[in-house]
């Protein structure tokens, strides 16, 4: 391409030079012509002058011998004159053909012809005076205009020649300009691309240089990364591997070989690779995933076991990926990591975790973790089951105080405050002993979400960090409600025995003392009368106790139950208590629309209802007409009976724990015996029901019986 351009360029210049040469040559020959023509035209002028000169000289010497010589000379000049004239005319015709010269020549020919003709006549008769005179006259007459015309012709020629020279000059200028422009053009069109290319090349070069540098940097970085990878790989025990199906080659990295416990020179194959996997699950799994990968273009990431050449069984993480070309698997590659330590630890951990969870999730143990401020961070299934709260309701939201009995916490706080001689309240009540490195395991009341409660044996242990700082507390609570209830019953019987039976007996003793001391018969009789009171009281207490024991002694299945209508039952009791009710103008209302019947023991239900009515009447407010309202509801599938009065109410803050005890009375009332609630509670509980109480002093009381 470039060569062709040069050829074109050279030819172009040769052509220019040739043209120029032709033009100049042409111009030179033209100029030569012109010079000759001008020269001859000038000679012609000179000849005409000589002719005139000689003619006049001849006139002077006409009578001398030299006259004939002169004529002879004149003849020669005439000859030349004619010759030159012919030449000029010829020349003009062939070369110039100039209009103005032609006209000049036509005019000149007249003068020329007259001179020639007149001389020809003379030449024939040189001695003829007439001819001679005629000739002189002709010369005189024609020489001057001839000369003038000849001058004009010479001028004309000169002008032509000058024009030609000017033309040449212009031509030369043109050539120079043209050549220059051509050169510039050539430079512009031929060399510019080269320049440009050069320029491009230069920038290309610098780019290349930069690229090289980048590559170098990248290579260095890669090398560094590879080094780091190598190091970490060997630390993390990550090896690589590759299976090239085209060249039938299997490559294992150093670490991969190390993991397999093979020699560094070991040459693996697909089959040997798979054979390393432990027989059974691991080998089956890897076989499946590889087959799947080759056919379906899928990757794998499996934690499997291999047996190394040293016979060690270790856990590895095998990650693999296929490479497909034209829908065919050409290569498999991936990593191979020794995760034995981690995996074994993980398996161990899982086992421990599972065992722990099994313990944690056992239904009767509540395990709660709190941070040092009391915020619940863990709430196990057992806790959910026992307390009725869901872990998400409490975690990071509440402290365990939410399900503790506030009175109990206060009481305990006071005890601790006395012991440590500082104010201990709230969350500290639970953690004080633990913080003091003392064993904290006490009986607590847990209040369920639905308001019912249970008793737990609660131990609180501290979780410490490596510096020994407490970071959390673990609350382990075991449901001891049943045990507590039995204990409570025992305690109740013990209390009955120690108080309710001992009191009258000690009274009997005292009265006996008094009887002895009494001096008069009157005194003795009076004292004896007191004996009767005490003995009556004693037998009544015994009767109640026996009743309670009888109720408790019966198992649920031994208690006869049948469908009973609340309304019928209430009517029956209303009639039997009508005297007491009408005495106080009491009003009994009922709403059994939610549920009007129950499968229950008849005497029990009768006793429950009549006792509650009696109680309400007994503790009715003297300021209000007694109103007793009976209402049934269904709660969580269980029948509830709500008995609400507008009586005196009970200060539950003070008496809640004694409410259903035997011989516990809370009002100054002559009929208070503290028996009714004790018996009905026993009856209700013997049939797995519960009784609770809501009350406000001087507003009224509601007993809730859940059957």
């Amino acid at each position, binding site marked *: 391409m470039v060569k062709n351009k040069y050829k074109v360029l050279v030819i172009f210049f040769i052509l220019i030079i040739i043209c120029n040469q032709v033009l100049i040559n042409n111009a030179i020959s033209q100029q030569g012509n012109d010079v000759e023509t001008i020269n001859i035209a000038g000679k012609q002028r000179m000849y005409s002058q000589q002719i005139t000169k000689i003619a006049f000289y001849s006139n002077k010497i006409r009578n001398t011998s030299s006259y004939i010589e002169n004529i002879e000379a004149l003849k020669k000049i005439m000859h030349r004159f004619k010759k030159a004239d012919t030449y000029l005319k010829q020349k003009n015709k062939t070369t110039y053909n100039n209009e103005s010269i032609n006209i000049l020549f036509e005019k000149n020919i007249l003068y020329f012809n007259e001179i020639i003709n007149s001389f020809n006549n003379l030449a024939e008769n040189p001695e003829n005076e007439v001819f001679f005179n005629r000739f002189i006259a002709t010369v005189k007459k024609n020489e001057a205009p001839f000369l003038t015309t000849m001058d004009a012709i010479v001028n004309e020629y000169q002008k032509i020649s000058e024009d030609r020279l000017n033309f040449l000059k212009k031509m030369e200028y043109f050539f120079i300009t043209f050549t220059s422009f051509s050169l510039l053009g050539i430079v512009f069109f031929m060399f510019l691309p080269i320049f440009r290319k050069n320029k491009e090349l230069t920038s290309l070069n610098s780019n290349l240089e930069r690229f090289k540098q980048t590559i170098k940097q990248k290579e260095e970085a890669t090398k560094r990364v590879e080094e780091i990878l190598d190091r970490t790989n060997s630390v993390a025990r990550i090896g690589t591997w590759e299976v090239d199906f085209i060249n039938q080659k299997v490559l294992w990295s150093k670490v991969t070989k190390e993991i397999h416990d093979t020699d560094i020179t070991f040459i693996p194959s697909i089959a040997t690779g798979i054979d390393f996997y432990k027989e059974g699950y691991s080998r089956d799994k890897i076989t499946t995933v590889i087959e799947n990968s080759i056919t379906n273009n899928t990757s794998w990431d499996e934690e499997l076991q291999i047996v190394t050449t040293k016979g060690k069984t270790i856990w590895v993480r095998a990650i693999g990926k296929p490479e497909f070309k034209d829908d065919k698997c050409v290569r498999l590659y991936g990593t191979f990591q020794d995760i034995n330590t981690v995996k074994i630890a993980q398996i161990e951990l899982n086992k421990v975790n599972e065992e722990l969870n099994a313990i944690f999730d056992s239904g009767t143990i509540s395990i709660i973790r709190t941070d040092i401020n009391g915020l619940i961070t863990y709430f196990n299934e057992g806790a959910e089951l026992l307390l009725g709260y869901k872990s998400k309701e409490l975690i990071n939201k509440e402290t365990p105080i939410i399900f503790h009995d506030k009175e109990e916490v206060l009481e305990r706080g006071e005890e601790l405050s006395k012991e440590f001689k500082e104010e201990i309240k709230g969350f500290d009540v639970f953690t004080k002993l633990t913080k003091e490195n003392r064993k904290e395991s006490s009986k607590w009341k847990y209040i369920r979400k639905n308001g019912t409660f249970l008793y737990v044996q609660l131990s609180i242990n501290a979780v410490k960090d490596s510096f020994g700082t407490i970071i959390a507390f673990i609350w382990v609570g075991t449901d001891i409600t049943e045990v507590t209830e039995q204990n409570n019953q025992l305690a109740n019987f013990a209390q009955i025995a*120690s108080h309710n039976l*001992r009191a009258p007996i000690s*009274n009997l003793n005292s009265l006996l003392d*008094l009887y002895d001391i009494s001096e008069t018969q009157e005194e003795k009789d009076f004292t004896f009368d*007191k004996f009767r009171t*005490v003995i009556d009281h004693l037998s009544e207490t015994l009767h109640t106790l026996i009743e309670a024991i009888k109720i408790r002694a019966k198992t649920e299945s031994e208690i006869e139950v049948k469908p009973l209508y609340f309304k019928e039952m209430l009517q029956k009791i209303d009639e039997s208590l009508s005297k007491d009710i009408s005495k106080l103008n009491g009003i009994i209302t009922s709403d059994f629309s939610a549920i009007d019947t129950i499968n229950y023991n008849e005497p029990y239900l009768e006793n429950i209802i009549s006792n509650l009515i009696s109680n309400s009447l007994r503790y009715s407010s003297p300021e209000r007409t007694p109103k007793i309202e009976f209402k049934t509801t269904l709660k969580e599938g269980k029948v509830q009976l709500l008995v609400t009065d507008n009586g005196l109410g009970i200060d539950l803050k003070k008496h809640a724990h004694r409410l259903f005890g035997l011989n516990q009375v*809370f009002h100054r009332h002559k009929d208070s015996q503290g028996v009714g609630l004790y018996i009905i509670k026993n009856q209700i509980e013997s049939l797995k029901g519960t009784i609770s109480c809501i009350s406000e002093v001087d507003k009224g009381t509601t007993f809730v019986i859940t059957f």
Partner: protein
Amino acid sequence: MLQNQSICIIDDDEVYKFFMQRILKIKKLTENIITFPDGEEAYNFINENKQNPEKLPDLIFLDINMPIMNGFQFMEEYTKLAPQIAKKIIIYMVTSSIDPVDLERSKNFKEISDFVTKPITAEVLQKIVDSLKV
């Protein structure tokens, strides 16, 4: 011997109170006896007369199990009131209970001088009253 100590009995047991009053009179231990059927009434009385030493008793026999306000509840209120009471009162906790829990609990109150179980014999009563005179 001047037997003019004022003795207060807080108990809901009428027979017991009858016995106590009789013994104290027969044994001529005191003529000055006041009784209350429960803690609250006794507390109200003491509160009303806290600046009136002549009306306040020298000795209280306090029962544990009573309606309205029991012996311990009375003690809690009494402890709060004690700094304002213009008389040193000796309190005996009296109960038919032989429950050790009650005994332990009564030890928490430094105002309680002793714990006596029913029945109280005439001799014991004599000793207690006699100890006041020293």
